[in-house]
């Protein structure tokens, strides 16, 4: 298992290299550069060339990529082309906010979603089940910023209970969590419901019930224990996506996260910043996927054996 984990972590390096090349080339492909973005009036051609030189933009893209990687390999993410601020500092000053939001959405989504899913599964086919299904589907379909604005109007203005933005204090976390976590909650509920349904009808549970195991234990220990994996996939997937931050949520709630950093960087044609964000996001994405896969192994011994160093070549499970 450890061997497997190390192998995956090492794989991170070629992935990062590939991703960085793709993103760098793509950004270079986009017309315009950072100097155009600055919209400087009265810029003569000579001054324009001089600025190009200052920002290394007169060099071919391979050279610029090389320069960037050279710095990166020394552990330096560089300074933002646009503002001159240190990329690492800027990123780390904002990342805790994104992480906080991601984790709290996760908690919100799971804590509400899983019990709701179990509830619906137990009452499959009834009005309650249909209502839950419907509400979750609606929740997945509402445009995020719409819900965000509606909540803000109700809670920040009408009732003046929650702040309309900012990242200070526990209160400002509530609305962004609900908005970001809603989709996750809906997905988790559906996933839980469907896996629980599969389990609840399984034969081995019939045995357990026949043995006289109380229903609650049947659900908790047996059914849920086997239903874990798809639920874990959903949650893990959602976490790895939200770790990149959501520019929309951040704009609406003035939540200082890394999502808007990345979007602004692309608009500004700020190579260093874009690369910095991409590399950090990719790294965390891959690490989270790895964590989820390792958790699979913990949950299911069949998978664990598949990860073990193969003494005989076997077909790996899905």
């Amino acid at each position, binding site marked *: 298992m450890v061997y497997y984990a190390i192998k995956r972590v090492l794989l991170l390096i070629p992935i990062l290299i590939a991703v960085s090349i793709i993103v760098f080339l793509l950004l270079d492909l*986009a*017309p*315009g*550069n*950072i*100097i*155009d*973005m*600055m*919209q*400087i*009036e*009265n*810029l*003569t*051609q000579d*001054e*324009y060339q*001089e*600025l190009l030189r*200052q920002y290394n933009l007169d060099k071919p893209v391979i050279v610029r990529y090389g320069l960037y990687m050279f710095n990166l390999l020394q552990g330096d993410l560089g300074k*933002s082309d*646009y*503002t*001159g*601020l240190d990329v690492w500092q*800027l990123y780390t*000053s904002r990342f805790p906010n994104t992480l906080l939001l991601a984790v709290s959405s996760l908690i919100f989504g799971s804590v509400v979603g899983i019990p709701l899913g179990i509830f619906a599964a137990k009452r499959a*086919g009834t*009005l309650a089940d*249909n*209502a839950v299904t*419907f*509400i979750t589907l*609606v929740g997945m379909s509402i445009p995020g910023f719409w819900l965000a*604005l*509606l909540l*803000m*109007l*109700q809670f*920040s*203005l*009408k009732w*003046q209970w929650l*702040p*309309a*933005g*900012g990242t200070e204090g526990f209160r400002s976390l509530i609305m962004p969590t609900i908005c970001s976590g809603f989709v996750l909650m809906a997905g988790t509920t559906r996933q839980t419901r469907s896996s629980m349904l599969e389990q609840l009808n399984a034969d081995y549970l019939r045995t357990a019930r026949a043995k006289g195991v109380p229903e609650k234990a049947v659900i908790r220990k047996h059914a849920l224990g086997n239903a874990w994996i798809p639920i874990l996939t959903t949650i893990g997937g959602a976490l790895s996506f939200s770790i990149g931050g959501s520019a929309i949520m951040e*704009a*609406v*709630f*003035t939540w*200082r996260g890394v999502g*808007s*950093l990345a979007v*602004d960087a692309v*608009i*500004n*044609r700020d190579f260093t910043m874009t690369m910095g964000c991409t590399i950090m996001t990719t790294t965390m994405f891959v690490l989270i996927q790895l964590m989820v896969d390792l958790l699979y192994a913990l949950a299911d011994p069949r998978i664990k054996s598949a990860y073990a160093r193969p003494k005989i070549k076997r077909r790996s499970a899905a």
Partner: protein
Amino acid sequence: MKKIRILIAVLVTLASLFALVACNKDEDKPSPSGESPSTSASSSESPASQSPSTPASPNITEDNEAPSALPVEEEGVVFADHIDYMIGDNVGLINPHHPAGDGSSHNNTCRMIYDTLYYNNPDGSSVPMLATKYETDDYQTWTFYLRNDVYFHNGDKFTAKDVIFTWQHALESVGSIASSNWDYIVEAKEIDEYTVEFKTATPYGNLLFNIGISVSGILNERAIAEDDVAGYYVGTGAFILDDFSPGDYLHFTRNDNYWGDLPPTKTQKWTLVSEASARTIMLQNGSAQLGGVSEADLSLFRDDDNFRINTVLSNNSVSLMFNLDDDLCGDLNFRMAVAHALKTDEIAIFAMGSLGISVDNATIWGYEVPYMNTNLPKVGHDLAKAKEYLDASVYGGETVEFTIMSGNDNMAAAVQDQLAAAGITISINPMDVPSFMVYTSAVENHAQMFSWFAMFSQNPVDTYRVNFYPEANNNRMRYNNPIITEMIDQSASILGEDAQREHYYKMQEIVSAERPCIPMYWMPGAMVYRANLGGFITSASAHYDFRYMYLTVE
């Protein structure tokens, strides 16, 4: 039975959604006479800064006070220690000597933390600031006498050396907004500790304006040498920038050792809230006392006695520009056809709502720039004339490409619809800022028609240079008329009001007849503030002054 249950669930959820929306819909309904809310084009499209304040509607107030005038001290009037101001533009750095150092809030910050040699009043006059007086015989050699009681935020004493340093550093910083203002001065000399002498290349009457702008603030060499980021925050100004989180907020504390009148407010915090609706909510629930508000939400504040509105209009106009190198757009008949097909007052309302003020003069000039020629014939909506010009033109029914920056959808859709009525078909081509700049570049413009800003500085000398000088960065129209070029070159040396008036009137007449661009509406912005707040200045030259802002507390 199940089908019905699902339907009930559908209805219940929809009903609760409606309830949520309905309860929060504000009762303010616009009057149908055309003063209706519209989506405001994002003012992030504004190239340099938001601009001057001029009352556009009768019910909008204006606060215009002299820079150092403190609010009237009355019995029992207490000022709040702190004011929260919500800004909408993203400030990434504070450095007027950096090419990226520009923008509304950036320049307003410069005014807070730096002092300039002279200070520009909204009406165009200049009053002494760091300099006590100046002398010049020929508008080419200038001598400035400086104050001797000024200290920087880091304790250093202000001397002539700092002025020379600022000038030199500005000239070295390619592309910065400071350099574009300081580079009129080609030579600077320190006469003694508190006297400097400047020489301009040619006689230049408007030097005071250029050195009085907020971004021409005097910097401290030692601070910059120690820290090439935070060193730029050190100035001699009335406020100290003691906490700056890029893209987040700026926090100012009063400089208690200030040489001039002490500001009434101890601390100010300018926070970035990019979502306009959030700013509105924050104003309404008291988290902020001042902020830019989207046009659509203005109606919420108009009838509220707790708030006042200050409208600012820019000298810049959003204009429909033609690429004169293009076969179709280079045809004057086509351009005139377009000009007569547009209903600029409607475009103004669609784009800016009740804040929309269309450009209705026939001339191409700045809103508040002196010497506007009002004698020229109007080029307004006239479908008959439009069709006449169109028939005379080389237009053969093809689709013309209209390039815009993303976010100006409303204006573009209105233009498309109006031109269709005249028989001109256009397609809308949105691009993000850098792509747009490259596509419509002054050096090689690939667009046909595009919308951009005709930028008019408060300084008439620069006004046509920026837009119509060949190879000028903002001359995306590829306009090249040798007569105009020569007149622009002469502008700086023309002295005397009558001579200037004749000169600029003539220029406007020539350019207007050629219609290289069609100004549509002025760039507006609205600031909403608490009724007990006052003391800030919104001026014609796009640089505001928040130093003497106060909030009275009962």
